[in-house]
């Protein structure tokens, strides 16, 4: 299935598409592949950058909501173009209990596969994907980059999956 992209118009991969597999560094010497998580729902949260100066930034919010995601047996992965050491510092500062993946080299390559890369800015869109147990995207959402999309869309998608 090909999606004709108009230049300059962001379009994230829609529901029904197979989620492209990828392998990214989660720590300096460990990588995590999407295919390793086959068999459980996966939430991919692409976001622009670590350390935005807001109390309840998106990753901190998802950190608080983690128990609700876990009720569905879902795994949450945060992805930005920041490097592993930046992620390490950010995860420590926010006490994050889920992995942050570094879409660092080639820069934004995974985000691009998902239609979630802001080429002009050089960072990811605020884009969410809920992938079902067999690796198909069940729900996706592109948020305006300045608006924290919250967790309600994710939870609704997880609920719909479990029906």
């Amino acid at each position, binding site marked *: 299935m090909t999606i004709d992209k108009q230049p300059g118009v962001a379009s994230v991969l829609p529901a029904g598409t197979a989620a492209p597999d990828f392998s990214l560094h989660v720590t300096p010497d460990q990588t995590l592949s999407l295919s390793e998580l086959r068999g459980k729902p996966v939430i991919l949260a692409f976001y622009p950058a670590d350390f935005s100066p807001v109390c*309840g930034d*998106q990753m901190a919010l998802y950190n608080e909501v983690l128990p609700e995601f876990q009720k569905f047996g879902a795994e949450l992965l945060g992805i930005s173009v920041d490097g592993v050491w930046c992620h390490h510092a950010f995860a420590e500062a926010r006490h*994050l209990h889920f992995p942050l993946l570094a879409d660092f080299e080639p820069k934004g390559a995974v985000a691009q596969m998902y239609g979630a890369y802001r080429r002009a800015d050089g960072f990811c869109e605020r884009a969410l994907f809920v992938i079902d147990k067999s690796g198909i995207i069940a729900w996706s959402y592109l948020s305006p980059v300045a608006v924290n999309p*919250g967790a309600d869309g994710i*939870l609704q998608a997880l609920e719909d999956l479990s029906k």
Partner: protein
Amino acid sequence: MAMLKVPVTPEDHFQGAKDAAGTLVEYGDYECPHCGSAYSIVKRVQKHFGKELRFVFRNFPLQQIHPHAESAAETAEFAGAQGKFWEMHDALFENQQRLGAPLYSELAREMKLSPEELEQALEEGKYKSRVRDDFSGGVRSGVNGTPTFFINGKRHDGPFDYGSLVQAIEGAIGDQRKTMSA
């Protein structure tokens, strides 16, 4: 557009008439500095609208980054169970820098509540589920940080300075009146 999924009920902590044309719901965290700023702004907004506005506060503690947020929320609920929610809510925001057990005991004493009972309630987690219910309801409603405001059930996505809140509430009240007279 994110909508409030948990309607306001008499079980909520609210100020103002229940049939007011405008309802402002805040999901807040007592240790969050943004909520600290919002605290005095909301008071001004309430003064401006008088009888036209009902204000509801619900808990949304960001426990992972604010170590006192949960205990502060439970302390306010403890006071609420004895009819002193708003006094405690206000006192906690006015003393945001000093949140912790010594402050809670001091405030309890000031409000003629038992510090020992409060300590026990916190230890037992007596009000944890109330706070959790607020939190879950907030997540499902699209709360995306603190403070998050809902005006007549719709999440307010703009800034929460005085002017912006007043404008948004006036708009919502106006829409409500149009719908009702249609």
